[in-house]
């Protein structure tokens, strides 16, 4: 390879350089700002993770698999997966190979930023570089791959249904500018490289194109304008990128190390939260996933719109979207970049100003504590039913019966009422108040001297597990606990012939990762069929405490939709493991709804 121009420069590279400089400066400043916005503890965590081999490896792996290959998307939708990885991975390879090419043949030019990008314009092939045909082939191959992706992207834009997406977002004006410039970059590159293929060399794509151009156009003068166009398109794309959905490309590169460092959302609009907002590609997968989307009026209250409105600073909409959400977490389960919809919303709720703050300092739990302490016993299992279970006495009764039948020494902590677990007020974003309640409950539990705490309510379970830090006390959900009793031979339910379907409660499934224990338990008592969408794709019953504003009458359609989903396998009974799901389903279901404790208890002698 030899230089075609001694200067190694042509003015057409200027637009590219401007775009590149802008986007780099913007993203680097942005990244530094987000890192600075982390609190001291998170900052420390983040920097440590950057030098810990385990997280370095995980970061690299995640960056490769998520940003380039889009593994999660492949699993969900192959067409979309192919489209994204062909563009991302293809483009990445073009850049990488461009640099390799430059490094091999023009090492003295490597320091020129633009050289690898416009390599084919600046070089001429000579006899010594015929061996480079492998690289030329690869360059053409990856360009073809990207072009295939672009064709699919155009088809998807016109007809998203072909890709299995029922609803998607509308791109903004700048999104469109970014989109069209992105679409144009690669065809222009193909044309530009084809024009120069007889000089710089090419492969199966560019050489034939070059011959064709010669036959039809025959004018070498077209060469420079197409390189200009290519450069300008790159410039446009990079200049609008920070203001479009494509910001997700650089943002995700920061989000992944953030997440791997174990950060949580501490502030509604800063640091980790902001990284999530910018990482949202506006793909709209969460729209179809959201249980509220059965009603058209709720479509614009999905996570993608939350992110969009946070970027736009539309406070009124941010509040509406944050307050309406059921916090079921399904958007997070389907999200390609892992935007945590529920946590984002709770964070938005937490920065609200209240003229009146709840205060529980006046609550005297001493008598309660003393009563519990009087009967303290280390072998005792403490059962906390929770507020909601007071309205579903069948659950607590079944649980007590199970304890007795298994010969468990138990104490029913809130039989005559207790304090709330704190999760509902946490969901409302009142963290300080939640801490007060948690502290009081913790004192009572500690006083009991019990070593195991059993909860039949997933709402309680989640907060006890994540926020109580009950050292020395095992916190288990009754689905886990009953399965343990069965496995230990302390319970032996007789197998029935009922056809059951298990509904995964949001807080237990997506919220706490418990999917298999209830299923294994239910297989002991009857035939288990699956809902159409189950496990982490389970549809919220609609009764969730997560939503602050969704009124009773607005929830019926959601519940009916969830019931329809559950009845796909023609079950005789719906079994769930949450008092709230049970009450909600029971209102509209035409088949019996019961808690797993009832099911198990029925099958015990």
């Amino acid at each position: 390879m030899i230089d075609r121009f001694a200067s190694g420069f042509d003015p057409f590279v200027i637009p590219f350089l401007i775009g590149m400089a802008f986007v780099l400066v913007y993203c680097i400043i942005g990244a530094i700002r987000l890192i600075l916005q982390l609190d001291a503890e998170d900052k420390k965590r983040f920097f440590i993770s950057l030098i810990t081999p385990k997280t370095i490896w995980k970061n690299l792996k995640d960056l490769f698999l998520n940003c380039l290959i889009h593994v999660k998307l492949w699993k969900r939708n192959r067409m979309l997966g192919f489209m994204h990885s062909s563009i991302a991975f293809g483009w990445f390879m073009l850049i990488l190979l461009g640099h390799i090419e430059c490094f091999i043949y023009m090492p003295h030019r490597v320091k020129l930023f633009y050289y690898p990008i416009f390599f084919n314009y600046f070089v001429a092939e000579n006899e010594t570089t015929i061996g480079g045909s492998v690289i030329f082939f690869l360059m053409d191959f990856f360009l073809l791959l990207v072009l295939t992706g672009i064709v699919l992207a155009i088809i998807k834009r016109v007809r998203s249904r072909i890709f299995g997406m029922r609803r998607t977002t509308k791109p903004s004006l700048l999104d469109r500018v970014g989109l069209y410039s992105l679409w144009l970059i690669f065809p222009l590159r193909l044309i530009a490289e084809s024009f120069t293929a007889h000089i710089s060399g090419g492969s199966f794509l560019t050489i034939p194109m070059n011959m064709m151009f010669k036959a039809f156009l025959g004018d070498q003068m077209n060469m420079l304008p197409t390189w200009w166009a290519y450069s300008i398109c790159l410039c446009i794309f990079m200049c609008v990128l920070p203001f479009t959905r494509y910001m997700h490309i650089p943002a995700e590169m920061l989000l992944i190390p953030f997440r791997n460092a174990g950060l949580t959302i501490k502030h509604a609009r800063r640091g980790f939260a902001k990284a999530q907002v910018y990482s949202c590609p506006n793909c709209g997968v969460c729209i179809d996933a959201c249980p509220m989307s059965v009603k058209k009026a709720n479509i614009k209250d999905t996570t993608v719109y939350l992110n969009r409105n946070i970027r736009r600073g539309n406070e009124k909409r941010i509040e509406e979207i944050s307050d309406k959400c059921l916090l079921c977490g399904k958007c997070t389960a389907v999200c390609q970049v892992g935007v945590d919809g529920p946590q984002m919303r709770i964070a938005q709720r937490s920065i609200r100003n209240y003229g009146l703050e709840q205060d529980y300092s006046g609550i005297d739990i001493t008598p309660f504590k003393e009563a519990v302490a009087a009967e303290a016993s280390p072998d005792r299992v403490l059962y906390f039913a929770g507020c909601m279970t007071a309205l579903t006495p069948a659950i607590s009764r079944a649980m007590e019966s199970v304890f007795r039948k298994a010969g468990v020494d138990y104490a029913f902590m809130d039989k005559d009422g207790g304090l709330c677990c704190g999760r509902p007020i946490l969901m409302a974003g009142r963290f300080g108040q939640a801490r007060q309640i948690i502290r009081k409950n913790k004192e009572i539990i500690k006083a009991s001297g019990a070593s195991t705490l059993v909860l039949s309510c997933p709402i309680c379970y989640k907060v006890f597990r994540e926020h109580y830090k009950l050292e020395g006390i095992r916190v288990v959900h009754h689905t886990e606990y009953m399965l343990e009793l069965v496995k230990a031979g302390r319970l032996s339910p007789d197998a029935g012939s009922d056809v059951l379907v298990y509904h995964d409660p949001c807080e237990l499934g997506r919220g706490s990762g418990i999917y298999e224990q209830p299923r294994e338990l239910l297989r002991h008592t009857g035939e288990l069929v699956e809902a159409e969408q189950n496990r982490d794709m389970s549809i919220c019953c609609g009764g969730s405490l997560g939503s602050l504003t969704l009124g009773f009458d607005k929830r019926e359609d959601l519940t009916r939709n969830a019931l329809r989903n559950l009845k796909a396998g023609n079950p005789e009974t719906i079994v769930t493991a949450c008092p709230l799901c049970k009450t909600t389903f029971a209102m509209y279901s035409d088949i019996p709804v019961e808690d797993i404790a009832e099911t198990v208890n029925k099958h015990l002698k």
Partner: protein
Amino acid sequence: MKDNIVIVGGGIAGMEAARQLLLLGYKPILVEKSDHLGGHVADWHCLFPDMTPAQDVVKGLVEQIKDANIFLETEVSFINRMKMGYNVMFSNGVNVICKAILLATGFDLFEASRKEEYGYGIYDQVMTNRDLERWFNTGDDKRITGKDIKKIGFVHCVGSRDVKAGNQQCSKVCCITAIKQAMEMKERFPDAEVYCFYMDLRLFGKKYEDFYIKAQMESGVHFIRGRVSEVSENMQGQVIIKTEDTLSGKPAKITLDLLVLMAGIVCNKQAVQTASMVQVQTDSDGFLKSKDNILNIIETGSKGVFLAGTATGAKTIPETAAEARAAALAIHNYLVAQS
């Protein structure tokens, strides 16, 4: 007269309409899904406000409609609209061509177990108004027989005025029924304290207010204004209910030996299906839809289809009977106009 008239439902409305139509010279066909006539009233013991035995009312009516064609344990399988009337197919295989149909399909008593927080079917000492009437009739119920009953509670509005139970309407008769049953229980258990937990006392009918005063003066029934929200059970098998005594503004708890739930009147689900065969819809309250709710409550939007009784909403027996008579007359007028 040859014109066939089909009456769906053999409760008070259906029987009274049949009686009137017989008097007018028709021979109506009456179908009843259960094995006896009288509907819900046949399960009752005594009726307010004069403590008339329910059996007397039912028997009297049954006696007077002997000449009608009565099919028991029969349901309507389908109805086809024809040019001059309807072709009705019954589940017993009989096929009838008729000019008029009277839907006297009545109501369903709210399934008290659906209000899980009240513990019906979960706790031993919880029963419904119907269970109590059955005990008045049979004297046999393990919740009462042989038990030392010292405190009895009546919960009004179970499945009525409650969107969560799917019925926003007032069932009209529960307040007076609760007072009636409270007094009857007091008679049987003179030493017991009897409590009624109500949201509003709606005692609108003839002599109902007298009943209320009697319950206060003679029976000493305690009236507590507050809707019961939770029921639990103690070690002795007694039930503990949580309510708010809204008049003193304090949450209240009380331990009872027997809790009676005043299950309300909800739309008969099967009736909705039958009605849809003749294009009669349900109104926004969930009951069958009349032509209008002022002067045409017994007529429907479908020609030759009439309504009577609790199919259109909660009613007392006298109201039901009056409507049935009106429906019989409307059917007669309709048939005369047709010929």
